[in-house]
C-alpha cells in the first residue's frame, strides 16, 4: 500500500469515529439514546455516566482502526491490505459505536417515561424552498465543477497518456487504455452519486412533521449539501489524474484535497451542532411521540399503528422507514434492486 492509501484509510476511520462520538448529541432533546426521557434528563449525573460509557467504547473501537490498518499495510499482500484498510478499518468505529449505542440504550431504558399523549403538529404546508438551504448556484456548483474537469480533459485529450492512470481501478490495475469510459467514468459516476444525494433532499416533505421540523430538515439537507460538495471536489480533482498521473493524487496536494474534503464533511455535523444549527436550543421538549417499544434496538422502526412511511431517526442524522408498512418494504426492495443493478452494470462495464 502507498503512504497515501494508509493515511487516507486512517483519516477516514478517525473521521468516522469522531462522527460516531458526536452522534448522540444530534438526537432530539426529548430522547436519550432513542429512549423517551423526562425533560432535562440529559444533564443529570445518570445520563452523564451513560454518555461517558458510550464515548469510551466508541473511542476504543475508533482507535482500533489505525492499530489494525498500520500493521496490515506493512505485512499483508497488497489486495488483502487494501480490503482490510478500506473495508474493515472504517467499519470498526461504526460497529463499535452501534454496539455502544445498543448497550447504553439498555441502560437508559430504566429512566424511560411514556411519550406524551398530546400530539401537536404544524398546519403550515411545507414547500421545497422551506427545507432546502442554499441558492441555486450552491446546488449547481458541484456539477459545474465536475463538468469543468470533464471539459479540461476533453480539451487536453491528446496529452492524456495511453494507457492512462485511472484512480478508480485501484488496487488491481492502475492503468487503462485511453477511452471515453476510462477518462470520463469517474466524474460521470460522481455526478450520478451527487444526483442521488440531491434526490434525498425532498424526502423531508414526506416525513412526519415534529416540532422544529423545518429547521431540522434544513440542517439535515445542509449536511447533505456539504457531502455533495466534498464528493464533487474530490471527484473533480481525482478525475484529472488520468492526465497528470498517479502523483496528482498521491502527492501532498492530492493528499490535502482528498483527506481535507473527507475530514471536513465528516466534521460538518459537529460544527453544525456546536453552532446550534441542528436546532436543539429552544426546540420544544415534546418531540418524537412514537412509543419506545416501536424502536427495535433503538434503530429499526416498526409501528403498525403509525401511518407514516418515513420517520426521523432517533440515532443519527436523517430519516428511516417504518417497516410495519408494506410501502417501506417496497421502497427498500426498489433501492436495493437499483443499487445491485448499478453494481452489476459497473462491474460488467469495468
Amino acid at each position, binding site marked *: 500500500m502507498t503512504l497515501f492509501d494508509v493515511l487516507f484509510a486512517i483519516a477516514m476511520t478517525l473521521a468516522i469515529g469522531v462522527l460516531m462520538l458526536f452522534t448522540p448529541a444530534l438526537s432530539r432533546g426529548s430522547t436519550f439514546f432513542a429512549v423517551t426521557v423526562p425533560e432535562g434528563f440529559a444533564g443529570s449525573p445518570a445520563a452523564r455516566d451513560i454518555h461517558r460509557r458510550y464515548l469510551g467504547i466508541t473511542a476504543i473501537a475508533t482507535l482500533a482502526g489505525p492499530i489494525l490498518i498500520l500493521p496490515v499495510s506493512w505485512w499483508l499482500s497488497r489486495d488483502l491490505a487494501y480490503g482490510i484498510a478500506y473495508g474493515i478499518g472504517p467499519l470498526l468505529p461504526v460497529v463499535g459505536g452501534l454496539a455502544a449505542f445498543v448497550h447504553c440504550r439498555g441502560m437508559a431504558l430504566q429512566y424511560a417515561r411514556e411519550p406524551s*399523549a398530546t400530539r401537536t403538529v404544524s398546519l403550515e404546508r411545507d414547500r421545497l424552498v422551506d427545507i432546502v438551504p442554499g441558492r441555486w448556484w450552491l446546488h449547481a456548483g458541484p456539477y459545474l465543477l465536475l463538468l469543468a474537469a470533464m471539459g479540461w480533459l476533453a480539451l487536453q485529450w491528446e496529452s492524456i497518456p495511453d494507457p492512462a492512470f485511472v484512480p478508480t481501478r485501484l488496487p488491481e490495475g492502475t492503468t487503462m487504455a485511453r477511452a471515453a469510459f476510462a477518462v470520463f467514468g469517474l466524474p460521470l459516476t460522481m455526478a450520478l452519486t451527487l444526483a442521488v444525494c440531491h434526490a434525498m433532499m425532498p424526502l423531508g416533505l414526506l416525513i412526519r412533521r415534529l416540532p422544529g421540523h423545518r429547521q431540522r430538515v434544513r440542517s439535515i439537507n445542509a449536511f447533505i449539501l456539504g457531502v455533495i460538495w466534498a464528493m464533487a471536489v474530490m471527484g473533480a480533482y481525482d478525475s484529472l489524474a488520468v492526465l497528470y498521473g498517479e502523483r496528482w493524487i498521491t502527492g501532498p496536494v492530492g493528499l490535502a484535497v482528498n483527506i481535507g474534503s473527507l475530514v471536513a464533511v465528516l466534521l460538518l455535523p459537529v460544527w453544525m451542532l456546536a453552532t446550534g444549527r441542528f436546532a436543539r436550543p429552544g426546540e420544544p421538549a415534546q418531540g418524537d411521540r412514537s412509543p419506545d417499544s416501536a424502536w427495535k434496538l433503538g434503530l429499526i422502526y416498526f409501528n403498525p399503528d403509525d*401511518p407514516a412511511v418515513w420517520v426521523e431517526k432517533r440515532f443519527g442524522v436523517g430519516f428511516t422507514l417504518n417497516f410495519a408498512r408494506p410501502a417501506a418494504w417496497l421502497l427498500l426492495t426498489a433501492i436495493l434492486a437499483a443499487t445491485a443493478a448499478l453494481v452489476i452494470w459497473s462491474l460488467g462495464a469495468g
Partner: protein
Amino acid sequence: MSNVQPPALAVDVDSDVPIVQQIVNGLRRLLVGGELSPGDALPSSRALARDLGVHFNTVAQAYRTLEAEGWLALKRRAGTVVLERPAPELDARNAQLLARQFSKELRDLRARYEALGVERRALDAAIEAMIDDRRNSS
C-alpha cells in the same frame, strides 16, 4: 425568519373525546380565532394523518365535517383551502336563545368536571383565563 408561530393542531390520544371530534374542534377554534384565514391551504388529509399518527379516514372525516359547515373547500388539485365564510345572520331572539343554550352547556360541563373531582375554584379560574385570553386577543 418570522417570529409568528404557524397555526398548530393538537390531539390527545388518551382523551375520551374521539380524535375526529378533537380535530374538528381544534380546526374550528383556529378558523373562528382567525389563525386560519380565507385562502389558507391546509395539509392534505393524508399528510395531516401522517403528522398526527392517526388513520387517514379520521382526518378525511373531520375535513368533510368542516366542508359541510362551509369552512373548507376540498379540491382535488388545490388541496384543502379555507373558505370565506360570511358571519351567520341571526335575529335578536335566536341570538338570545343560542346564548342561553351556551350558558346551559357551560353549566352542564362544569357540573360534569366537578363530579370528576375537579375543584370549583379551579374551573372558575379556567373560565376566567379563557375570558382574559379572548379580551387580550381582541
